[in-house]
């Protein structure tokens, strides 16, 4: 079977205009604009020139499309769900950071308390 080599892009390296975000997420620009107005999708920076979106916006927009299609949510529901998912993501990252710093119970190879 033929093996195709593929270009690989870091998710984080994406810097997208609104139409590009629409193409990659599969959501119409009007809907993205509305989610953006509600603060559910945040741009990289607010500037005087065209708004650019990064990885977190792409992640949110792709989630939004799935949530909307699979749960038949209206946009406000999508915006609330996105905010909660983002919050859960932050908490999970904190949990992982704390777990990494927590010593494991017993040093490997030592059977404590079993003499």
């Amino acid at each position: 079977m033929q093996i195709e080599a593929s270009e690989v892009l870091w998710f984080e390296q994406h810097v997208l205009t609104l139409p590009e975000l629409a193409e990659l997420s599969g959501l119409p620009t009007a809907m993205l604009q509305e989610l953006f107005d509600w603060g559910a999708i945040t741009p990289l920076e607010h500037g005087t020139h065209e708004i650019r979106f990064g990885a977190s916006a792409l992640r949110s927009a792709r989630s939004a499309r799935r949530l909307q299609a699979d749960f038949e949510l209206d946009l406000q529901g999508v915006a609330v769900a996105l905010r909660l998912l983002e919050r859960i993501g932050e908490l999970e990252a904190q949990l992982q950071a704390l777990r990494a710093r927590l010593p494991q119970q017993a040093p490997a190879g030592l059977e404590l308390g079993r003499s």
Partner: protein
Amino acid sequence: MKYKDYYAALGIARGASDDDIKKAYRRLARKYHPDVSKEAGAEEKFKDVAEAYQTLKDPQKRAAYDQLGSHAPGQEFEPPPNWQQQYSEAPFAPEDLDLGDLFAHLRGASAAGGGPAGARRARRSLPGQDYEIAVSISVEEAFHGTQINLDLNMPEYDAQGGLRRVPHTVRARIPKGATDGQRLRLPGKGGKGFNGGRDGDLYLNISLRAHPLYRADGHDLYLDLPLAPWEAVLGTSVEVPTPAGAVRLKVPPGTQAGRQLRPAQRGLPKPREGQGDLYAIVQIAVPAKVGDAERELYQRLAQTSAFDPRGHFVESGHAN
């Protein structure tokens, strides 16, 4: 073509009402939706549930599905004669086809009256589907970068607008610096677009496999460093493993348990530049058994030492 039991996927009887179908779907979607659920295998389960719902919620597709009869899940079967002409909008070869792909492209009730869908499709371009795949790599692979082969089996349109499953393999280089929670995008490696539609993308969601020594937080690694009591008191120099090979680490005299010693820049490399750190967390390890001579030394130490590790209990007035 392999049979799938869509009623069983939703946990409902064949005669279930539209309302029951919707309720069952909603309940299972809340449980298994990949954006919401953290249950193991949730994504696969949700795919089955969604596929079943997409077919059964549409009266026309449901009628077409019911006419296929009832078979054991996974059993090879062929649609009854005339079924294809009656329901399908484009020719298909049943042996190459997944039941879900077939129903996704059948003419549904909402499209009824619009003429043969094959004709519509010939004029319209359709973007290919995006896919997300979970890829787990070891800490060592994250450190050095790695190459993986993804065996994919995606539906593609042929020149006539018919659908078939085309197995193929995509080789992707996972660059060094990919770590837990990171995503990579393989542009154009998702489902093929039709009639000029853009090819879909493939997204890889990276996770790190648990490692016997290291625990990762982003690009930083944490490692337990057990020390004997005398090593912690007197100080020493120890060899510590890192993904790039062992390094010597100086343990200063009087090192307390929980202290983090950090050989700089020994964590995982970051995508473009820089490197995370490795933190060795000191633990004081105590032998489970001691010999007579050793015990005697500890006893002498106990008699000689003026060290009181719980002095602060008394000072703060919470003891005695």
